[in-house]
């Protein structure tokens, strides 16, 4: 019954450390202090930058402070709170961390015990738990908070189930939705929620956070990971755990020979990556390859090389996307990128042979590089 993040001290439910989203925090706080808190918030932004961490931070603040009497004191009303920060040892924060707070409901993808992974979408049955929860009074007397982590993974019937509640929200109820892709949210939900857009973290912030969450990592690697992850600490950590940096180096070693692909080395690379047959390295390699192609296309469009993630990457990019090839290269790389991402997506949905899919992608790069 236990999902892997159950013991992770940095899971958003437990993590009280959030950086880089001061503006968004301020907006939430001002809205709270104004006394007219909107009932539904869409916290949007790329994956792994702290959307859920911000949602839980707000939940912690509301459940810890929201129940406090805000009545006038002897010397006038106390000043409104200045930050969303709550001591992690605060009783409400402890209960939120253990999922034992009776006024907080979390809706997220469920853990599939058989397949050892999270289910692909957020089932409507999970979403339907929200209504009965909000229709009961608060156990601790204050607000009731619902955190929907990955709201864009709800299917349309799930979203419609949520819509019912957003249309007629009970008083003192707060629904915080963390979404990677706002486009996947029905317009009817979007129009009833306040949007809070979070920006990717700065490279320095990711490097700092890596120092905190992965102290064993050396600084050079941390910078490389920060660049690879484009401002997403979540992605940087995922890549780190999946050995993403080594994978990226190996991948570049293979691509180094472009426009010729050493087919034997390619087979060996694929075998190495897919040995173990685990989800993490598969998703890491597809993501990295897609990301690298994207970078190539971008470099070729801008005619300007991005900062190197690993040393020696520049010449390769220059060779493949350099000015002498400009007329044809942009279209071509965009096309290769589109085709490979589509292929990877299909490999997941149609259960294609991963070896063949990877080989196919590499061969299409070779063809485009010629």
């Amino acid at each position, binding site marked *: *019954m*236990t999902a892997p993040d*159950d013991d992770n001290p940095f899971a958003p439910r437990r993590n009280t450390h959030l950086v880089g989203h001061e503006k968004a925090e301020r907006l939430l706080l001002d809205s709270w202090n104004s006394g007219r808190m909107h009932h539904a918030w869409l916290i949007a932004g790329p994956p792994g930058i702290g959307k859920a961490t911000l949602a839980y931070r707000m939940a912690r603040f509301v459940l810890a402070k929201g129940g406090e009497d805000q009545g006038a004191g002897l010397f006038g009303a106390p000043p409104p709170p200045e930050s969303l920060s709550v001591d992690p040892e605060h*009783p409400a924060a*402890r*209960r939120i*961390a*253990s*999922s*034992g*707070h*009776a006024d907080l409901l979390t809706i997220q993808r*469920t853990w599939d015990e058989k397949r050892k992974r999270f289910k692909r979408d957020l089932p409507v049955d999970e979403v339907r738990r929200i*209504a*009965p929860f*909000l*229709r*009961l*009074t*608060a*156990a*601790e*007397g204050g607000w009731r908070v619902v955190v929907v982590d990955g709201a864009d993974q709800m299917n349309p019937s799930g979203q419609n189930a949520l819509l019912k509640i957003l249309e007629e929200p*009970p008083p003192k109820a707060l629904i915080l939705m963390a979404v990677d892709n706002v486009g996947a949210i029905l317009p009817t939900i979007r129009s009833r929620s306040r949007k809070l857009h979070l920006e990717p973290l700065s490279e320095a912030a990711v490097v700092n956070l890596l120092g905190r969450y992965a102290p064993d990592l050396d600084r050079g690697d941390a910078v490389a990971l920060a660049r690879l992850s484009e401002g997403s600490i979540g992605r940087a950590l995922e890549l780190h755990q999946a050995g993403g940096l080594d994978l990226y180096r190996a991948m570049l070693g293979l691509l180094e020979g472009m426009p010729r692909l050493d087919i034997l080395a390619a087979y060996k690379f694929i075998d190495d990556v897919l040995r173990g047959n685990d989800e993490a390295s598969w998703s890491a390699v597809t993501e990295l390859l897609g990301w690298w192609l994207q970078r190539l296309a971008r470099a070729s469009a801008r005619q300007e090389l991005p900062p190197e993630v690993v040393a020696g990457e520049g010449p390769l990019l220059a060779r493949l996307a350099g000015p002498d090839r400009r007329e044809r290269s942009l279209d071509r790389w965009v096309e290769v990128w589109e085709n490979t991402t589509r292929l990877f997506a299909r490999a997941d949905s149609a259960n294609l042979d991963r070896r063949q899919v990877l080989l196919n992608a590499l061969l299409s790069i070779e063809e485009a590089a010629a």
Partner: protein
Amino acid sequence: MKITIERAALLRSLGHVQSVVERRNTIPILSNVLLRAENGELALTATDMDLEIVESVPAEIARPGSATAPAHTLYDIARKLPDGSQVELDATGDLLTLRSGRSQFKLGTLPVEDFPAMSGGDMGHRFALSAADLKMLIDRTKFAISTEETRYYLNGIYVHASKTKAGGADVPVLRAVATDGHRLARVEMPLPDGASGIPGVIVPRKTVLEVRKLLDEAADRIEVQLSETKVRFTFDSITLTSKLIDGTFPDYERVIPTGNDKVMEVDPKLFAAAVDRVATISTEKSRAVKLSLDRNVLTLSANSPEAGSATEELEVSYGAAALEIGFNSRYLLDITQQIEGDGARFTMADAGSPTIVRDVADGSALYVLMPMRV
């Protein structure tokens, strides 16, 4: 924490509290029972975050303190220990050691701070009533609680203070009302001391059923505490605290007709048996039974295209104009089962209007039933 307690007392308390702990729980702390030892008592707490049960039992306390441990495991151990044995519970660090005779168990615990808090805060209103009265309030209304989720404010019993006319004067009463839109049950009792200013609250179905379970072995006096957001029932050693339904109960007085003039009186037991027999024929879906009334004779009938037809005559006391009216047999049975006296009084207007059913001998309960077209 270190205590010694009799196996039977531990087993009985665990039996009470573990019933709210769900077997399959995704949240680890909710599978645990909170043990708190102080002042010569062990308090056991279990919750599903909608309601919480605390039971206190006397125990010999060597070292006060608290811990949380898996409820079902603890219950299973207590169940299997020999009768009459003494159990020692010793919590140190994140381990609970249970010793009894030559058996020893070590169970993992979770921090007490992680355990949900429901009992905090002052409730505001407090009154007491007898177990028999509470039992009556629940038993006579719970069958009418709606299970349909769209009208969630009907998924419980509405408890509030009101006034009723008796002998020309207004008498303050405590009322319990439940309805699912087809039938309504309203039961009242003299207002207990301290209940005059209570807010109207809707007690959720799950809480009602849990309270009813505990009532069977409860002492005679039950204390009720109420606030706008919570209700607490205190039986002698057990305290149940629950969330309420956050909604407005509809103005039910409006649907209780006042101008019905056609009165039928019948023995509820004979009537129920006859309805049950005739309903065998009515279709599974509608369960309709037709009541045809003419001077002191009631003819019950049911028709279904597949099964055929049935009729039964019953002697009743009825003096008004002839009337044909249809009801859902299930609802008729539910209501007549609540009537303990030898007379049920049906007050009707016509085939399309709600009917009132009451016990001839006992005015405390009133039922309203919508007819069906037959």
